[in-house]
């Protein structure tokens, strides 16, 4: 709670600024307020069910299962699982972070975690379909074919680097 005090102060100041803007008709403030509302609504739509799914995952999925498929013993299957899981993740990067932490707690290795995070940014299936409809299927396929190997390679490098440094994710 203590480390959140600064955040609450900033949020408070922002709230006052918005209130001031709406009362005294400050054009910039009103625009900013509308932006905030739009993006907040967009997030509030996704977050509750994303976190409920994470909760269910933590309660029901056995540690051994994740360890076996995504843990330090797995060679390549971990990356395939990570990409497949990322393909169905909604909300992109932001929702992938808490999911990644849960996976890590269940025994997935760091390189797989990094692969999952990056893949959920670029390999989400609904998003790829949307992208293809606006930029063409060829573009989407090229992008996926170049990015997936890059993501896997960089995840292995990152994972090894932080594993060597004995890095641990300690958060909630």
């Amino acid at each position, binding site marked *: 709670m203590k480390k*959140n005090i600064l*955040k609450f102060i*900033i*949020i408070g100041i*922002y709230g006052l600024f918005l209130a001031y803007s709406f009362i005294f008709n400050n054009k910039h403030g009103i625009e*900013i*307020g509308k*932006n*905030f509302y739009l*993006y*907040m609504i*967009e*997030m509030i*739509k*996704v*977050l*509750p*069910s*994303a*976190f*409920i*799914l*994470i*909760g*269910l995952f*933590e*309660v*029901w999925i056995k540690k051994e299962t994740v360890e076996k498929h995504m843990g330090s013993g797995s060679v390549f299957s971990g990356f395939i699982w990570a990409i497949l899981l990322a393909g169905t993740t*909604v909300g*992109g*990067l*932001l929702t992938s*972070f*808490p999911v*990644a*932490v849960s996976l890590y707690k269940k025994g997935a290795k760091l390189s797989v975690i*990094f692969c999952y*995070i*990056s893949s959920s*940014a*670029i390999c989400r299936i609904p*998003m790829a379909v*949307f*992208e293809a*409809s*606006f*930029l063409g299927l060829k*573009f989407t396929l*090229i*992008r996926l074919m*170049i*990015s997936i190997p*890059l*993501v896997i390679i960089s995840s292995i490098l*990152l994972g090894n680097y*932080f594993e060597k440094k004995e*890095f641990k*994710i300690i*958060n*909630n």
Partner: protein
Amino acid sequence: MLILYILTGILLLFSACFNLKKTFMALKIAWKKLINILPAFILTMIAVSIVLHFVPDTFISKSLQGGNKYLSSALASVLGSIVLMPGFVAYPLCGVLLKKGVSYMTISAFSVTLMMVGVLTLPIEKEYFGIKVALIRNIISFLIAVIISLAAGIIYREIF
């Protein structure tokens, strides 16, 4: 979005049928995690609302339509790294820009950094993994985006 809620509902129901106690525990975990991250989340949305006011869509499309392909791609990757935009806003915008003659190289520089790199979401990422991991991940993602953009440029014969 509706599918997501239907799926969550069905899974919750299943879970409750098998074990009511575990289901409540899941909900408790969900609630705790949501509350923990909410301040950082609101802070990010505040940053987004301010940045988007000063860097509107019109500014982005103007900058991406610059004459020099390399320059506008570089600018596109910087803008994409900073701005946060849901896909249903970003891709239609990219589609329009493509029709206006913006190169695939520039479009991919923008769309890939938009998805993979998050300067504004750093506070959230930091909360989960610490600042070091967050920074390194973002830098590597930026490099990946640059490679993809150059590759798109070569494949579409826009450069070389």
